[in-house]
């Protein structure tokens, strides 16, 4: 009877282990996830170090901690912001392991392997290909339109918020959702969930890009109308060169030198 009470008390103790504050500490550590990026295990060291604030709660003995880190130091990669979903899932599974719920325990390695593709694809599409260029183009447009340095600084603050609000949200929410829905996370990381945000940021992308070209062209026309032609031809020429070669350095140099010669000959 006494033993049973002790086991129940221990179980209750474990159940209350991971708090919101713990998840927040992991969230903070996740900002350094790519710190030790390497070609053999990619982001796994940074990923493992994210667990340092809570590993004491998940593993009681040094041996258990050793096995824990050995499991998570294996190959892993994902978009740095979306890797937080994998963090949350791993915390939940490790917690289940520590509670002794071995029957329903999913294989953490296999689950992480399965997440590499979706987390990378969604993150790259959402952040690198949409939110980042849209935010930066918005910032550039604001800078070109602002007459004073003070307004330019305000524009930079806005740009920072436009980019980092979704950044912080998915970084934190990923940990929380991964933790609460470890076994059915696929319902939460499908492309369709991010359709609305992608659509709105792509509008910002398009409006900022074309407004920027229009306003910059107008400014150039005040200086020398021929410069508008230089801007548009340089863009078109480099775009075509990019189709022939993927070597960034070669294309940029070739294009730049070509237009320097054009400038020397015709201006």
């Amino acid at each position, binding site marked *: 009877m006494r033993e049973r009470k002790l086991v129940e008390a221990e179980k209750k103790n474990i159940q209350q282990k991971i708090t919101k504050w713990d998840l927040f500490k992991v969230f903070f550590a996740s900002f350094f996830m790519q710190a030790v990026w390497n070609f053999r295990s990619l982001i796994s060291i940074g990923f493992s170090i994210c667990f340092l604030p809570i590993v004491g709660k998940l593993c009681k003995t040094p041996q258990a901690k050793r096995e824990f*880190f050995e499991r998570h130091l294996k190959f892993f990669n994902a978009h740095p912001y979306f890797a937080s979903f994998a963090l949350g899932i791993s915390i939940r599974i490790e917690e289940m392991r520590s509670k002794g719920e071995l029957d329903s325990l999913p294989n953490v390695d296999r689950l992480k392997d399965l997440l590499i593709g979706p987390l990378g694809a969604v993150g790259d599409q959402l952040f690198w290909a949409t939110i980042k260029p849209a935010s930066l183009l918005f910032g550039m447009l604001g800078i070109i339109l602002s007459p004073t340095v003070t307004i330019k600084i305000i524009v930079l603050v806005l740009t920072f918020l436009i980019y980092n609000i979704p950044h912080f949200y998915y970084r934190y929410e990923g940990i929380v959702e991964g933790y609460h829905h470890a076994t059915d996370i696929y319902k939460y990381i499908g492309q369709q969930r991010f359709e609305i945000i992608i659509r709105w940021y792509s509008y910002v992308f398009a409006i900022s890009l074309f407004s920027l070209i229009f306003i910059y062209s107008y400014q150039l026309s005040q200086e020398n109308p021929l410069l508008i032609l230089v801007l548009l031809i340089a*863009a078109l020429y480099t775009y075509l060169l990019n189709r022939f070669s993927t070597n960034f350095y070669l294309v940029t140099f070739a294009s730049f030198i070509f237009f320097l010669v054009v400038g020397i000959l015709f201006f």
Partner: protein
Amino acid sequence: MDLIFLSAIISILSLDITIAFQMLISSPIFACPIIGWILGDVRTGFEVGFLFQLIWLGRIPAGAYIVPEGNIASMISTALILLHKEIGFPNTILTIVFMEAIIISLIGAKLTLIYRKLNGKILNLTERLVRRIHFKFLLILEVSSMFIFFLMIFITSILIFQGNQYLLPRMVPVIGHLFEDQFIVVKPVILGIGLASIFPIFLKVMHRNARKKIG
């Protein structure tokens, strides 16, 4: 301005690219005005950041792909332009510095490659520490790795600044006397190259949206 202090600031801001935070602070439109503010000319910082922002934006760091280190190149370029602005010939300085920026972005990419290979050694060390149950040192290893990157960028920046203290005062007046007026094309050309870099991403995003709507 003390070049050591300036290089330290550039190295700290460079950590934001991939190693810590990734909050966009290292992007040219943020980092160049910061460098400009340190060197007493925020307006030029904004202008250089604006011109250089799009050049490197088209390269997406997906998977293990190492992109040209344009952010570091932009910060060093802003510093070079401001440190040597008293020479005059602003278009010529921008022309030379932009060409240097392309080379610096290549050097930066090579440094990233070396850094990631070095991190392989840190992984071996981490695995050894875990086997020996020395978990306290894991954080020290992470910080050491970050410090290695900081040091690499710091030394590179110092070398580039020192080299340009010799190079720019000799080159700019000679080329500037010949072509300063012709180099008026440089600003629109840099922005044009940037637009060409961003345009494929724009087309992809729009194409995807259109396909979803039809679907």
